[in-house]
């Protein structure tokens, strides 16, 4: 009996162990693990799409005594994105770090992070989520510090402290729920939770903790330096995947665990914070002097869009309209994941070739690094939310929802965010055709461009034109 749920976590974990034990072969081990893991998760996602909800009781005890892993459509969708992005990041990293000294540290930590992310998406137990969350956090912090510069160390330490604060706050919420209901299983808790101060406080504690990790404005302060100073493949993983994982948990809590108990006022509050994130993040991205900083602030803004969905979801009656909104939210998150990873990988290329990533001094990239520039352009299309990207479809549905609900402030925020995103994206792209000399040191080999290009195309064409499939997948036991 092959349990694909367990494999999704154990395969990358095995790879990590091998890479620790055999550092000289870390790169080969990493690449093989990446391929095998992606294949395993692909099998899992296909199982979910074909046979519906997958659940496995680890140890055979079953909830509430044991821990279960569970994959519904939502988890499958995020797993698919995470593993494809992680595969691309791995391929890219094998060139980026090459045989350099960092590779022996990178691969084990990266595979641990990968295992933890898969574990988070599959988790069905509140305390297990805490442990997986800490594994994600520690691996991510260690990866972010890999460059070893002073900026990177300061940023990583701040990231670690913020992350720990979030986790411990979350854990207090878990303690409260265990006190009240005597179980940690998500499914059982969903049935047990009733409105009231206990449920409320627990939700506030858990959401508060997780939103630090999801970098919800104004708790985003740790993100730009950490994501901006990490090595490019790490930045890609942090921005595309790690914050998404925290957001995924918030989504699970609000619309899976609580559902009826989440009230409109609280959802509005999160929506307002999301609006603040969109405006503030975009504005800071526009002012950023460095490309990777810009990309990092753009992540703050894009996370804000995700929270903008909350008041609409909370207000919507269960039914087709709400499922559309939820699917649009997921589509947005997936598109951003692919596009932001592509952007960071391309930024890494530019940084390697130009020796810096100061936007004002990056002219003529279209001539010297056409494929990289193309990737940035495609990624920008998704970040701005232009067609034919998945983000466009999602934004259309977000606007529809906001107009239908009469939330005109949301409409204005989305439109303003779109224009700001166009403005910050084209600060770089506007210079791309210029001829002022920028010395680029290298001509990149074609195969090093492929991972980023594949990611960008997936975001901009794949999810845009084939987004409909997501609706079918999300039908599988979704959080509703």
């Amino acid at each position: 009996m092959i349990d694909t749920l367990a494999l999704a976590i154990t395969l990358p974990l095995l790879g990590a162990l091998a890479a620790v034990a055999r550092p000289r072969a870390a790169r080969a081990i990493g690449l093989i693990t990446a391929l095998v893991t992606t294949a395993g998760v692909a099998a899992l996602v296909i199982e979910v799409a074909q046979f519906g909800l997958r659940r496995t009781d680890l140890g055979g005890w079953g909830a509430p005594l044991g821990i279960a892993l569970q994959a519904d459509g939502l988890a499958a969708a995020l797993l698919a994105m995470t593993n494809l992005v992680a595969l691309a990041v791995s391929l890219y990293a094998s060139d980026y770090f090459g045989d350099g000294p960092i590779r022996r540290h990178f691969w084990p930590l990266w595979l641990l992070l990968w295992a933890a992310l898969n574990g988070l998406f599959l988790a069905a137990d509140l305390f297990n989520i805490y442990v997986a969350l800490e594994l994600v956090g520690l691996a991510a912090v260690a990866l972010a510090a890999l460059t070893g510069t002073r900026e990177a160390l300061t940023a990583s330490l701040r990231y670690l402290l913020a992350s720990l604060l979030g986790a411990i706050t979350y854990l207090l919420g878990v303690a409260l729920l265990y006190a009240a209901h005597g179980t940690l299983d998500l499914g059982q808790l969903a049935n047990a939770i009733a409105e009231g101060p206990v449920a409320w406080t627990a939700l506030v504690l858990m959401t508060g903790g997780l939103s630090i990790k999801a970098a919800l404005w104004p708790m985003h302060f740790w993100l730009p330096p950490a994501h901006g100073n990490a090595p490019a493949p790490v930045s890609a993983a942090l921005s595309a995947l790690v914050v998404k994982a925290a957001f995924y948990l918030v989504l699970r809590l609000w619309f899976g665990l609580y559902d009826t108990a989440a009230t409109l006022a609280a959802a509005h509050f999160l929506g307002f914070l999301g609006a603040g994130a969109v405006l503030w993040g975009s504005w800071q991205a526009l002012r950023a002097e460095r490309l990777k900083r810009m990309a990092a602030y753009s992540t703050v803004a894009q996370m804000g869009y995700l929270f903008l969905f909350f008041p609409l979801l909370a207000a919507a009656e269960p039914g087709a309209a709400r499922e559309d909104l939820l699917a649009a939210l997921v589509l947005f998150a997936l598109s951003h994941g692919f596009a932001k990873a592509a952007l960071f990988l391309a930024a890494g290329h530019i940084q390697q070739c130009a020796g810096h990533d100061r936007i004002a001094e990056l002219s003529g990239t279209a001539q010297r690094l056409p494929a990289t520039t193309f990737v940035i352009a495609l990624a920008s299309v998704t970040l701005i939310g232009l067609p034919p990207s998945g983000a466009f479809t999602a934004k259309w549905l977000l606007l529809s929802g906001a107009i239908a609900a009469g939330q005109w402030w949301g409409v204005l925020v989305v439109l303003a965010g779109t224009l700001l995103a166009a403005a910050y994206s084209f600060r770089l792209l506007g210079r791309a055709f210029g001829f002022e000399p920028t010395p680029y040191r290298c001509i990149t080999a074609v195969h090093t461009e492929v991972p980023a290009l594949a990611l960008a195309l997936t975001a901009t064409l794949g999810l845009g034109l084939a987004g409909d499939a997501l609706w079918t997948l999300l039908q599988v036991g979704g959080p509703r």
Partner: protein
Amino acid sequence: MTGAALRAFVTIAIALAAGVLWWVFSLALLEGPGERLAPLAAEALPRSGVGNPVTAVLLNFRAYDTLLELAVLLAAVLGIWASGPPDRGFAPAEIVLAGLVDWLVPLLILAAGYLLWVGGQAPGGAFQAGAMLAAAGVVLRLAGTPRAGLPRGDWQRVLVVAGVAAFLAVGLALMAIGHGFLTYPPGHAKWLILTIETAATLAIGATLAAAYVGGSPPDGPPGEDRA
């Protein structure tokens, strides 16, 4: 807002939060289920393969949590290794301390073995035993052994991953023969758990000691690239 006003605001807000939290927790405790998982755990204990209920939860009912916990520990030490080479350590101990250490370290190792074994029936277990081993390492380093008694590069790496590796090996092997991941077959649970615990003890001890040393381990054969 001035600094003082902000401080006052935060202080008052946290004090209020403390009140609310206590009220809410009291509500939960007074109205809550009372029993929670205790009866279930007690009922399942005889089938768990160990007599200590906490060990049963850690290594059987919620073994997957413990697996991830060991991975967290691994991630931490990997992060520490990535941060650069360790300090040189301390000067070799004078004769009195060295003599004490000669006594203390074997005692600690013995105590660790005892804690590991007793964990099956009474308070104790892999983490406590591992902490004892690590304490032995700390004492060694304080007394001037730079590597805290840890083996050189490659073996140290193997030790550090041993806990997770044993977990995965047992779990996947069980899955392969049809029991499901980490589902111990009846009757074999005790020995499987002890195997995992032994590996975990070594791993926890080595990892904590390595974290205390605080830098990447020296590599074995010369010519290996130095990170």
